[in-house]
């Protein structure tokens, strides 16, 4: 126990820094930002939830998952089922079971249930998929995404098919999204320093040695899979309440790749990497969008052609990965140099390294 508490003492500065960073962004936005900019920041917070959620599984297990946006889809549709006024559901989603058709829950309750649904689904499919490792596991997660997308695109009476479902109340403002992002960052932090998290990281770095030490990698992976599914399900619910419209296409390859890119650019094996990846990429995207609209400099407007932003962001990511192959954070955690509790962090040692020392 003594060692556990010292691990928290040594690493908690990371958590505090990340939370303060998120709060600072929200406060500054609220003070000076326009309404469209505020929405950009809300979107960014939801992406923090997604990427940090993704990190819980990908970062700790080392298995790249292409399927987690499927959980977002489950969460978003669950939020729609729970919160759309029953009169509207009767018309647009006639196939809903009656307990759902008549339900209209508070959005926080619905978000929690949405996360739970995603977690239960993850538990069921994860029991099978987590036996795979490496590229086979990645392909299996991708198949899961495709299956979820196909089912939600065609189950017309329950999901509205390829059409959009409308009538989801707008509840996700900047503070809700900030709360969601902080919640997921805390969950991710607690998981990575938990017994299961440490075991899984050990299994990621040295599978054979970990197994020989009595670690059941499949079990630990499943735990991480379920927890990350929960957080991404909640993120999906908040996204549904942010946009007010859900559609199966919104939860497919586009979001999958942008969130994975954010994670990789930030640094796949650290929570700070997950959060910073989102902030950095979102900032660059926003800068490029402003450039597309044109920036007025003393009478001359400088603008890049529309659509260049997508290309430019790809180039930026390539450049970042050329010079920082293990991500902007080099897979280390942000630490406060003068943190008084625990000497492990004084030299900015990565948490994984610290953990290995503990191990």
């Amino acid at each position, binding site marked *: 126990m003594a060692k556990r508490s010292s691990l928290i003492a040594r690493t908690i500065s990371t958590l505090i820094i990340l939370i303060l960073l998120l709060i600072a962004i929200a406060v500054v*936005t609220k003070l000076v930002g326009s309404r469209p900019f505020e929405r950009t920041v809300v979107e960014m917070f939801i992406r923090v939830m997604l990427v940090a959620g993704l990190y819980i599984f990908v970062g700790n297990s080392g298995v790249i998952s292409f399927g987690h946006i499927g959980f977002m889809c489950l969460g978003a549709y669950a939020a729609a089922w729970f919160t759309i006024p029953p009169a509207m559901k009767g018309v647009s989603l006639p196939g809903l079971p009656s307990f759902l058709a008549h339900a209209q829950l508070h959005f926080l309750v619905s978000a929690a249930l949405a996360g739970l649904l995603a977690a239960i689904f993850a538990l069921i499919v994860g029991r099978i998929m987590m036996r795979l490792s490496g590229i086979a596991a990645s392909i299996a997660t991708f198949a899961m995404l495709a299956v979820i997308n196909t089912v939600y695109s065609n189950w017309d009476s329950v999901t509205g098919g*390829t059409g959009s479902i409308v009538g989801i109340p707008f509840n996700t403002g900047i503070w809700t999204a900030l709360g969601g992002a902080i919640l997921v960052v805390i969950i991710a932090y607690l998981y990575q320093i938990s017994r299961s998290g440490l075991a899984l990281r050990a299994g990621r770095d040295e599978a054979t040695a970990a197994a020989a030490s009595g670690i059941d990698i499949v079990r630990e992976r499943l735990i991480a899979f379920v927890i990350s599914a929960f957080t991404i399900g909640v993120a999906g619910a908040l996204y549904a309440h942010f946009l007010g*419209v859900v559609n199966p296409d919104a939860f497919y390859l586009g979001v999958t790749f942008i969130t994975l890119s954010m994670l990789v650019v930030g640094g796949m094996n650290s929570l700070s990497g997950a959060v910073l990846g989102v902030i950095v990429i979102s900032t660059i995207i926003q800068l490029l969008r402003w450039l597309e609209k044109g920036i007025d400099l003393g009478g001359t407007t400088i603008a890049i052609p529309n659509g260049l932003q997508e290309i430019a962001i790809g180039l930026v990511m390539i450049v970042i990965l050329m010079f920082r192959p293990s991500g902007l954070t080099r897979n280390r955690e942000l630490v406060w140099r003068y943190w008084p509790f625990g000497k492990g962090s004084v030299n900015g040692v990565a948490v994984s390294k610290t953990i290995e020392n503990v191990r």
Partner: protein
Amino acid sequence: MSRVKTLALAAAFGTLIAQTAWADDIVVGFATAESGFMQAYDKPAQDAAMIRIDEINKAGGLLGKQIKVVTADTKTDRAEGAKAGLEVLDKGAELVIVSCDYDFGSPAALAAEAAGKVSFFLCAESIKAGIPGVGPHSFSASVLAAVQGATMAEWAYNKRNARNFYRLLDTWTVYNKGICDGFDWQLPHLKDAKLVGSDTFKNEDASIASQISRIKALPQEPDAIMLCTMMPGAVSAVKQIRAAGIKAPIINGSGMDGSYWLSAVPDLSNFYVPVQGSIYGDDPNPAVNAFNKKYKEVTGGDPSSQYVYPGYVLIDVWAKAVERAKTTDADAVVAELEKMKGEQTLFGPRTFTNEIHHQNTGRYLIVETDKGKPHVIDQWTISEPIPVADLLKQ
């Protein structure tokens, strides 16, 4: 942090400039796709809308004020769409014009609705694009997809003596399903007409050989094939049907209008498309042909399909409503729009009621493609409008 702060300041400053600039004008905001695949649909209709705005401004403006246009790019992205909606609203838009498609236009339309402003879909053809899917201030300038299916069924029944229909649905989009829903609604109203078979495929299917063999297995070739599909998969479907030797008339939705794809199916014949106006220079209304010429002058190219026209219609009807209401106040304008009963426009009449802000009936020109050459042969209006209750069920 300083980076975010600078950006935020820049954004706030930009908004400030935009707000003060247009104090004495009426502002119309386009929250449409300037990039991404929706641009192909939004841009032409937006160009047509700009032509009407230009005409109004040259004729002295609206309520004595000039119409100013502000735009924001949705990037064919739903979350960006909502932002684009807010952006044009922050620039003072009294009317928010959103993407052609319901799925991509609704986030911006919902933002306008929340701000109590009128929103218009450029050319969405789903019943949701309006009151059911956005709210009481939202409209669409086009005609429902269901009307296209119903029109073609009734026209083929009356003018081509079709009795045995075959229905082939591409389940990719709500638009496709809408055409077939209208067809399904119409068919029981036609005495002796029957459905001899129906099948589905997916837009991305490379081959529809199995569907075609089921058509070929029928005891006799159907009198008409209702094909509910859209680009890009439609071309391959039509090509395969004809290559298999099926010569039956193919009746379609308006999504098949345009001659840009005809070279892929050489000498296509017996192929019918309903359109609101003809892009082929043979519209019975000379004003439409004059518009086409003007469109070419402004944009440098002919209209690529009839989906150009709703953009013109929407500015036309909205401006009329504003003139009649003598204000741009949303509720007053909506009240005037809902008084329109068969309001004549260049591209057919428009009716809005407090139940439906879309067209559940409408005059369609029928374009026949004969030996690869499309031309107008007829026009048709369905004998009764499709009831709103039936539309909502779909």
